[in-house]
């Protein structure tokens, strides 16, 4: 990489009053043809481009993004990374991803601010406790860390949580994945973009795919607002817009697009040093390094492509947060927004070929694909480069919706979506 970031580079930058930092990556213009085109410049698309170059030596690659990179869900999510899934297939997939996150800052020479502050899931009833024992045990059987914790540990780990007998929503216990935590979402997009760009990948912004070019049924390129671009292999990583792109290519997906919203409060001093998730209230929260409480919600449960969130859900999520943390009642909320997420019936992703030869897709991550960016990029790159599914992605194919081999991860969302 031409410009390696390091402590020394920071010192050198300081002498120049930080005025001479070059752009981290090249904003390229479209060439007429590439070996591979990736549609969608979110985390998954950028990571796929990076791993195409890094793992497979394919550098004649373009990432085609209709807006700006990271402007989709990758820059809109609540940044939680975890691998607390139920089934072996998912445990393998998501834990591979979490392990990549653990070394991602070194891999990319870019600080993605991974903070393994742990994720606490709350049990609000006897049934929740039973379900969580099963869940935590399944994780341990799959080699992923999980520990059931009682009210005493909750009281010290989650200050402010209402554990009193008068609590509106009683908390009986819970479990923790200590390796879970948060990462800086923009940095993940920018870090992959910078590393991919340094290896020769073209990042094309303000470039919207409006059609696919085919010849004898095979995909041979894309039509964009910046002209036609040819490529023998094309990967789609467009999250909430996956169905729109599939329709352009002439097939349908088992996907419904919904708005998922989040809010942040004004910044305050440290009050919460872990991630707390309550399946019962549908709310989850953490505190950002800037001090804002980052509050995530459940889905707005009607199909939507509008990147705002319904006030009905905002209300119910805030009510849930206040029932758990009465002391937060006087916090002011600074921002509320939504992203359009691609939800499939079994809450598991799809990474592999489509019905159109040469065209591959990575979608279906729904409400939880930030944590999956490293593995989603890795496995999409693998199938684009080799034509074979990566073993980790093999169970996550489109055909599971016709042969019935669903990987029904209620745990995917962690909350009742």
């Amino acid at each position, binding site marked *: 990489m031409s410009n390696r970031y390091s402590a020394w580079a920071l010192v050198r930058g300081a002498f120049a009053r930080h005025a001479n930092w070059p752009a981290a990556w090249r904003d390229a213009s479209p060439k007429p043809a590439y070996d591979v085109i990736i549609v969608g410049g979110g985390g998954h698309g950028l990571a796929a481009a990076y791993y195409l170059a890094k793992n497979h030596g394919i550098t004649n690659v373009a990432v085609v993004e209709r807006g700006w990179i990271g402007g989709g869900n990758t820059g809109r999510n609540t940044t939680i990374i975890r691998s607390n899934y139920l089934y072996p297939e998912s445990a393998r997939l998501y834990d591979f991803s979490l392990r990549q996150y653990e070394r991602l800052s070194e891999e990319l020479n870019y600080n993605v601010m991974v903070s393994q502050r742990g994720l606490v899931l709350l049990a609000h009833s006897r049934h929740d406790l039973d379900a969580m024992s099963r869940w935590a045990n399944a994780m341990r059987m799959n080699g992923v860390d999980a520990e059931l914790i009682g009210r005493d540990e909750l009281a010290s780990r989650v200050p402010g949580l209402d554990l009193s007998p008068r609590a509106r929503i009683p908390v009986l216990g819970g479990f923790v994945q200590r390796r879970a935590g948060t990462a800086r979402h923009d940095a993940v997009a920018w870090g992959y973009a910078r590393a991919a760009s340094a290896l020769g990948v073209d990042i094309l912004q303000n470039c919207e795919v409006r059609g696919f070019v085919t010849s004898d049924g095979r995909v041979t390129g894309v039509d964009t607002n910046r002209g036609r671009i040819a490529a023998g292999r094309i990967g789609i990583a467009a999250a909430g817009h996956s169905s729109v792109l599939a329709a352009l290519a002439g097939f349908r997906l*088992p996907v419904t697009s919904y708005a998922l919203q989040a809010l942040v409060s004004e910044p305050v001093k440290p009050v919460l040093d872990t991630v707390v998730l309550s399946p019962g209230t549908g709310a989850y929260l953490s505190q950002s390094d800037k001090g804002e409480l980052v509050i995530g919600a459940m889905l707005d449960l*009607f199909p939507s492509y*509008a990147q705002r969130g319904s006030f009905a859900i905002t209300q119910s999520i805030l009510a849930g947060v206040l029932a758990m943390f009465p002391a937060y009642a006087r916090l002011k909320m600074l921002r509320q927004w939504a992203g359009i997420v691609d939800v499939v019936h079994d809450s598991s992703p799809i990474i592999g070929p489509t019905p159109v030869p040469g065209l591959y897709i990575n979608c279906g991550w729904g409400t939880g694909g930030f944590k999956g960016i490293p593995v989603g990029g890795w496995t999409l790159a693998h199938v684009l480069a080799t034509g074979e599914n990566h073993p980790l992605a093999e169970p996550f194919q489109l055909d599971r*919706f*016709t042969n*019935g081999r669903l990987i029904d991860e209620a745990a995917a969302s962690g909350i009742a979506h």
Partner: protein
Amino acid sequence: MMTIPCPHCGVRDENEFQCGGTAHLTRPALDASDREWGEYLYFRDNPKGGHRERWRHAYGCGRWFNLVRDTVTHEISAVYPITETPPR
């Protein structure tokens, strides 16, 4: 917050309602192939724009009805009974 016109109760706030997804899906015959059955259960148009969908006035009269709603603007352009075919 959307306001939704229940054909039985009039215009009410969105949080009284529950969306039941795409309307007018026809269940295939019992001898349907795996492909047809999978299409019926899981595959959707998921349009960006007009969508015909079922809603239930869950915290009101409890009855089902159909809407034509734009998935981008959330604008509702038609309301019609659950047993009726969609307006042209």
